[in-house]
């Protein structure tokens, strides 16, 4: 990571009795694509509004390039925001919307003309300069909003659910465009999203938030493969939570669950500690016979590249495992499940975590 452009240090914010942010600390590097990911109400939007200057933290500091932003009004911050609703000015045409920030900076007529044309071209809107906002489609509005926010060359662009209002197909296309534009602009992008796929697809690093706190900050692969908490594992992607007791034997470690022994990577937890192993369905090997934990196929869902199986391995434990393309299993088939040592992420037992993870397997 480059020297931090944005430093958020111990920021807390309450709305009445509701805690929106609790002791949040984050750093975003120059040119980085950063995602704030979490369910609605986790504080990600509040944090973004604090960076833009629409809310002020109760405590803690937000600094840009080492300069404390507290008390700096939104219109003096070198940070621009793309609003979830786009918030395009209905009384101005596309050109004037994009030029709005440049005019406020007092740039010359020629400079404004050149910059707006450049952005119109970049967002494939070259022929739309004179269109009124209500003449645009959803995707076009989204691009105007992006161009308008980028026009004044902000040090950092904040994007509030930028793809939320687009349909599925357009969303994927726009993800690529957004990544490309970010690469070309070399500007830091901070995106707020509740969509894990969006965060994984776009961001260099992701902060997963829950209830006003940051649960984990890491790259997409690490978030996916090595979630730090049970919440992160359950929120990002599908997973199995396997509870058991840790057994350490020299360098090797294993989790002893009621239905068998699952090898796992060395860790800091003491021998005999209660722990949870999060294993992604596609990391579990499925075979008809041989080594591994025995189970019966209870149900399956064909998903194209994989087939998701629900395999009962104990009276009250069902695991989800993804069988590769071409492997066919029928309901009631006996299977063997194998776990490579690096398949799972070992999570220390957290008090009060049970039942919180709706998306996770039981």
């Amino acid at each position, binding site marked *: 990571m480059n020297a931090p452009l944005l430093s958020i240090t111990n920021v807390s914010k309450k709305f009445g009795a509701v805690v929106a942010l609790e002791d949040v600390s984050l750093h975003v590097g120059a040119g980085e694509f950063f995602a704030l990911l979490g369910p609605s109400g986790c504080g990600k939007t509040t944090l973004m509004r604090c960076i*833009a*200057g*629409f809310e002020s933290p109760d405590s803690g500091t937000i600094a840009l390039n080492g300069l404390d932003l507290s008390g700096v*009004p*939104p*219109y*003096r*911050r070198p*940070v*621009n*925001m793309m*609003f979830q*609703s786009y*918030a*395009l*000015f*209905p*009384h101005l045409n596309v050109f004037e919307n994009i030029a*709005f*920030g440049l005019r*406020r*900076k007092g740039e010359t007529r020629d400079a404004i003309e050149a910059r707006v044309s450049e952005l119109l071209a970049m967002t494939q809107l070259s022929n739309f300069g004179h269109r*009124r906002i*209500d*003449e645009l489609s959803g995707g076009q509005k989204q691009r105007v909003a992006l161009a*308008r*926010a980028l026009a*004044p060359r902000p040090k950092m662009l904040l994007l509030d659910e930028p793809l939320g209002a687009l349909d599925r197909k357009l969303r994927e296309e726009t993800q690529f465009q957004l990544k490309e534009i970010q690469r070309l602009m070399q500007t830091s992008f901070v995106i707020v999203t509740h969509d894990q796929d969006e965060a994984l697809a776009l961001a260099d690093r992701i902060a997963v938030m829950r209830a006003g706190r940051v649960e984990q900050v890491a790259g997409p692969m690490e978030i996916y493969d090595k979630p730090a908490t049970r919440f992160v594992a359950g929120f990002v992607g599908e997973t199995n939570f396997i509870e058991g007791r840790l057994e350490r034997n020299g360098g090797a470690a294993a989790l002893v669950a009621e239905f068998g022994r699952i090898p796992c990577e060395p860790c800091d937890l003491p021998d005999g500690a209660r722990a949870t192993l999060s294993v992604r369905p596609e990391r579990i090997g499925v075979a008809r016979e041989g080594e591994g934990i025995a189970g019966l196929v209870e149900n399956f869902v064909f998903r194209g590249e994989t087939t998701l199986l629900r395999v009962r391995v104990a009276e009250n434990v069902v695991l989800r495992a993804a069988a590769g393309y071409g492997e066919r299993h029928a309901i009631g088939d006996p299977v063997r499940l194998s776990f490579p040592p690096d398949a799972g992420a070992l999570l220390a037992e957290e008090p009060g975590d049970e039942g919180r993870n709706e998306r996770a397997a039981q």
Partner: protein
Amino acid sequence: MSARRRLSLGERLVIAAPYLWIGAFFLAPMLLVAKISVSQSALARPPYRPIFEFSDSLADIWSKAQNFTLDSYRALISDTLYVESYLSSLTIAAVSTLITLIVAYPFALAMARAPERMRPILIGLAAAPFWTSFLIRVYAWIALLKDEGLINNALIALGVISAPLQMFATPGAVVVGIVYSYLPFMLLPLYAALERQDPSLREAAADLGASPAQVFLRVTLPLSREGVIAGALLVFIPAVGEFVIPDLLGGSETLMIGRTLWNDFFSNHDWPAASAAAIALVALLMIPLLLWERARLREGERAQ
């Protein structure tokens, strides 16, 4: 467009009802006034000729119509009293409208930005003056403005002035009366326009570097244009023809067309002149309305 469908009798009646209403209670009296305006003044009862009778044949009506004259309209232009009355009415109405707008805008803004549960109460308060008689409220201003009125007495007691200011019976008093009386008509359309505005537009403008003053001038104000125009028309049009306020507060010095018209009608018994003045006033007031309509239509076409 969907295919045209034949309307049932009931549907036609429903659509026709407002037109019938306007025809019977607006258009017909208007035509009557127009007819009187081209008649000749006479010492008679009613004081104009020709008079159509129900027994007139079409030929009678035609021959009587030969006597129609534009004398009353010519008088409107040649008689300086009328010209001055019109100009003074337009000036007083325009100044009043502008002041009403300036006074109402901050109120409307405060109402639109108030917490949501407060807004119905504030709207109720804005409409509260309607609960008492308009006439009584205008009379109350006499007590405030006259030489030994509340304002002068207070200022003298405070030592700000030694002799009472002449406020009552001036054009200024008429402006004050109009601004006070018509404030709700400006306030409500402004409030409606401001309340509709998406707050994120102001945030977006601030985010793009607009100071609070620029946010107001570049976003809030232009987006409230419809409300400003609607409010201005609702104040300006009745203010031009206002009779009660200049009669009560304006004194004999303040010329306004409503009073001139009233004098012609009731004191001079010159019905054709008064009718011509009324028709000319309607024509005069149609101009801004038509211009506004045209601008709206053009905008609508551009939006297509």
